[in-house]
């Protein structure tokens, strides 16, 4: 039987995790292109929606008000980073939340379980959300605008920014795992993601505007401040030393997310949907 052993031929990177993922992206794009007009429209709207946060900021500053300690362009930079983080995570992996909820409800989650790959990988491969690329474009545009208006930053700032931004994505992935896990338990509850969206909202503003106790929660427990506040501060060269704790917290958060997700999947397979 030829199908028995997976062959490791040269140049078969297509069958690697990344190769499979790219095939999934291609398939999702092809599906969405069937309704090109609606796709472009949806993507455009996604992009415009992303502007709403920065627009509020501009309106607030336009009315002469401000966040203490931050000028408008700095806040826009922070929000641009926030949108970029969303713009990367939403199309590329956040779709597992909706994918899982939908599949568990329809009973097609089982179809992923009869594939010879990790269930998490299968959930991600079949969840690429092409419309959310609009979010990515929106994030890039806001960030570009803010960077243009701010003085140039030294390379060291950029390096620490990229490191912290990586953790922003890690945190997002942790969120995705928790939400997807909840989606299996809480069958058919499409509003689960709102819980996460609302908590994420704290990340769209400078950490310093929140009360001390909230700042602690947002740094040590659910380190939402890593989503944008810390990376923005890093780029502007003014990170406080609590950032180390936030980084640790984000790693713990990711590990807990993984444990939670796989525990739920195990429960699903032992108890049945």
């Amino acid at each position, binding site marked *: 039987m030829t199908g028995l052993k997976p062959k490791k031929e040269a140049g078969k990177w297509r069958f690697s995790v990344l190769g499979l993922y790219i095939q999934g992206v291609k398939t999702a794009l092809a599906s969405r292109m069937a*309704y090109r*007009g*609606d*796709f*472009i*429209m*949806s993507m*455009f*709207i*996604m992009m*415009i*929606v992303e502007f*709403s946060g920065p627009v*509020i900021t501009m*309106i*607030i500053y*336009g*009315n*002469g*008000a*401000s*966040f*203490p300690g931050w000028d408008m362009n700095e806040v826009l930079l922070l929000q641009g980073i926030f949108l970029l983080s969303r713009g990367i995570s939403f199309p590329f992996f956040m779709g597992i939340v909706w994918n899982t909820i939908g599949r568990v409800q329809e009973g097609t989650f089982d179809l992923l379980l009869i594939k010879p790959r990790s269930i998490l990988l299968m959930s991600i491969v079949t969840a690429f959300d092409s419309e959310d690329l609009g979010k990515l474009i929106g994030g890039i545009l806001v960030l570009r605008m803010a960077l243009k208006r701010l003085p140039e930053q030294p390379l060291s700032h950029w390096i620490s920014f990229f490191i912290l931004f990586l953790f922003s994505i890690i945190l997002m992935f942790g969120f995705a795992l928790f939400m997807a896990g909840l989606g299996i338990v*809480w069958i*058919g*509850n*499409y*509003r*689960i993601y*709102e*819980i996460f*969206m*609302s*908590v994420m*909202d*704290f990340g769209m*503003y400078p950490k310093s*505007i*929140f*009360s001390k106790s*909230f700042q602690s929660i947002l740094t040590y427990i659910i380190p939402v401040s890593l989503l944008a506040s810390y990376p923005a501060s890093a780029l502007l060269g003014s990170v406080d030393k609590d950032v180390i704790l936030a980084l640790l917290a984000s790693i713990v958060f990711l590990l807990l997310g993984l444990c939670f997700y796989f525990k739920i999947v195990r429960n699903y397979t032992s108890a049945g949907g």
Partner: protein
Amino acid sequence: MQRAVMKKGNSTPRVSKAVITATYKENFAYRNQMAVSIFVQPIYFLVHYFIWQAIFQTRDQVSGFTFDQMLLYFAVSSLVEFMNWDSSGNKLQRLIQTGQFITFQLRPVSHIYFSFCEKIGQRILAFLVEILPVMCFYILFGIRLIPAKPVWAVISLLLSFVLSFLIRYTIGIFAFWFVKTDGVSRAVLLLTNICSGAFLPLNLYPQGFQKFLFYLPFQFVSYVPVRVFIGHYELAGITMTIPQIVFLQAVMVGVMFLVNRALWYLGIKRFAGVGA
């Protein structure tokens, strides 16, 4: 109510009562989904609280709002949003796209009426599961949820309830012309959010944009009822008394209804012409 129905022998109110009860029961299964709001809304509100607290540190007023009024604005507008939310547009879209709406054409009750009753049933449940708990949260938070002119506030809220339904339902009718309307309905939803004042008080926007917004129906969905609740209306430099703006709101409901019926008529004609 019940007795009046019996006497008149008129079937319409009985149908509405049946539809309202059925929808209430049908949605009861989703009460956990609705209850997500009890968790989510306080968080959104806290974020707003911190944003405006930070902003008001350096000043007493933003566009005529004090800090307390600003919080009241967001609290009331979120409640209005809960009260007005409905999925009639999406449902109608699906009915049209699958051709199932024909079964409604065969019933003695018009679909728009049926759909409106559904909304009432759904919102009664939402009132118990979402709105009351969130109101409790606001009150505990120290927001004074007392309308300046209670009677006018109730009238304005009811009008906005009807108007928001008409807007969503009208969007659903577009399914007669487009195969897939996800994009369009998303766009309109966004537009409604921005232009209704659910997002930010409309008088914070630039002057020119405010003038433009004044002539759209959206302000009457959220901004107007919230302003009536607070007791003072002002947009684009136009100040009106409460009775005046509520009258205008009623006119808008009438206009929207006519637009809705006209589009429905054209849609049905198109549907019959094309066939499906």
